[in-house]
């Protein structure tokens, strides 16, 4: 169960995708705060400023195709720093390049999901992600 104090941070530059993700997470019954950032820079600043706040836990949904910084760099940076390395990061992006996937897992992402275009609809997939989120355990961040 997602702790109610958990904030879902979404770094996604496409507004359409962002809204779809948000809607469907809500449809899955998740009522946690969702903060979305359209640029890597703004998302990163928030992460770095707030991660070390006590009793604060963050779940990050990260798109790789950002306008300013590469999502990969954000992933690497967050996993490198002690105060943010435990934050669960779910990569949610259009790329399904095998090397990209391997690289993300090498850098420490927790899950890599490709945004589907298939008939089954994006919404369904995100709803399932939402359901997944309801059953997953999140770690305590380093104090």
């Amino acid at each position, binding site marked *: 169960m997602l702790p109610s104090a958990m904030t879902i941070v979404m770094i996604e530059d*496409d507004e359409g995708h962002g809204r779809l993700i948000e809607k469907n997470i809500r449809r899955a019954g998740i009522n946690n705060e969702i903060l979305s950032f359209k640029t890597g820079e703004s998302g990163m600043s928030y992460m770095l400023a707030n991660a070390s706040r006590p009793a604060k836990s963050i779940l990050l949904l990260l798109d790789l195709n950002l306008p300013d910084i590469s999502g990969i760099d954000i992933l690497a940076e967050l996993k490198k720093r002690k105060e943010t390395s435990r934050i669960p990061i779910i990569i949610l992006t259009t790329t399904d390049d095998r090397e990209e996937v391997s690289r993300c897992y090498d850098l420490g992402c927790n899950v890599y999901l490709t945004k589907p275009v298939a008939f089954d*609809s994006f919404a369904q997939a995100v709803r399932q992600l939402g359901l997944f989120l309801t059953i997953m355990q999140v770690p305590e961040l380093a104090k």
Partner: protein
Amino acid sequence: MAPIEHMTMSDISTLESPRKHGWIILAIVLLLLLSVAGAVFLIIDNRQSGSAIIRTQNVQAAAFRLLALMQQAESGQRGYLLTGKDQYLEPFTRSVELVPSALSDLAGLAEDDPALQQDVSALSPVTRKKLEELRATIAAFKRGGPSASLPMVLTDEGQREMEQLRALVQKILDDQRIKLAQRTDRWRINSDLLISLGAITLLLTMLAAAIIIRDQRRHAAILDATRERLITVNADLEKHVADRTAALREANEEIQRYAHIASHDLRAPLVNIMGYSGEIDLVRKEVLDMLQNPAILPEESREKLARLNEDFDEALSFIRQSIDKMNRLINALLTLARSGQREFRSEDLDMAAIFNSIKATLHHQISTKAASFVVGPMPHINADRLAIEQIFSNISENAIKYLDPNRPGNVSVSAQSSGTETIFIIADNGYGIAERDLGRIFDPFRRAGPQTEPGEGIGLAHVRMLVRRLGGKITCESTLGAGSRFIVTLPTSSNK
């Protein structure tokens, strides 16, 4: 890019050895030959002159000797006549003995000389007479002493004969002296000429040598310069080729990167279209639910609502199908782009094994269509495994896919090896391809014939790209209604 430096035909033609000096050399050689001929002539002439000079000197010596002998004889006689002592007669006796041989010597030397012969033949009797006179006077003295010999002497006959003798000898000597002078002059002139010729020959030889050496040097310099230029031009060309190859490779990689990026940028809006078509669907459902309330919608409008709902369904369905199709196309483009980027590695491939495993993969389709798939004897080739598998899977699958259900399907695979190249032929008796379509089938997204089977039409474009990367080529022969043959020519050993 800068123009490539190269050698023109006029550059190359100056490499020929310079001919213009050939004439000069020839002239010099002729002159040399003349000099040598002249020298030989002079030497021979001098040899003859030399012998003639010696002969002249011999004649002079012989004439002198004869005169000396006769004078000795005379002085012997005089001594004897004066003293009456026998010892004074010795010179006479000795000389007289030698006179005949001296005379014959002289005569012998005169063989070639008619003038001398004349003189000698005049000399002979005079000599004899004088000798007789000497003997007579001596004999007279021996008989009667000085009173017997003196009157003979006083006749002056002896004196006159000696004078004659002396004059004759002098004549001979003078003649010979003149001849000697002439011959010596000639000899000297010849020698001088010879020296001059020698000097001329030396000069001519040096001149010829100088010309030849200079020509050779110039020729060698031209060759060296040309060789240097060739090396530079070669290096230049190689650099140009390397540069252009690198540029081409970069351009190719760029194109592939664009294809890669484009497909991703195309996917993002598709996600939105698909997602929001889903949202619209949800909204429609909620509105529909709301309108189920009879309080809101009168009974008579329900039919219209139902039809509107159907219209909505139809519209949404077309939207979703199009999105699906576009998604598949983008995936296919991505596959093409990705294959172009992958590094190829060559390995030894048993083509029989590869075709048999393709056959096994297609087993289901083959048996569904009750067709036959025959793999003939196959060679080994050296190439990238994945590319080869993709190429022949694709072609084989097409062959099975497009079999005509109205007749038993046969697909046969055969190969011919010719050293550097191996040709694979996959023949089927399916629908065949119309002639006007034969070019199109290799274009991406183009298909030909009845579209009875699902597919994007990406396969053969991908196949052709792979075949090209392997350094081979692919062609298709077909008869509409009878079947097709796909002919893939590949290098037997790929260096990629």
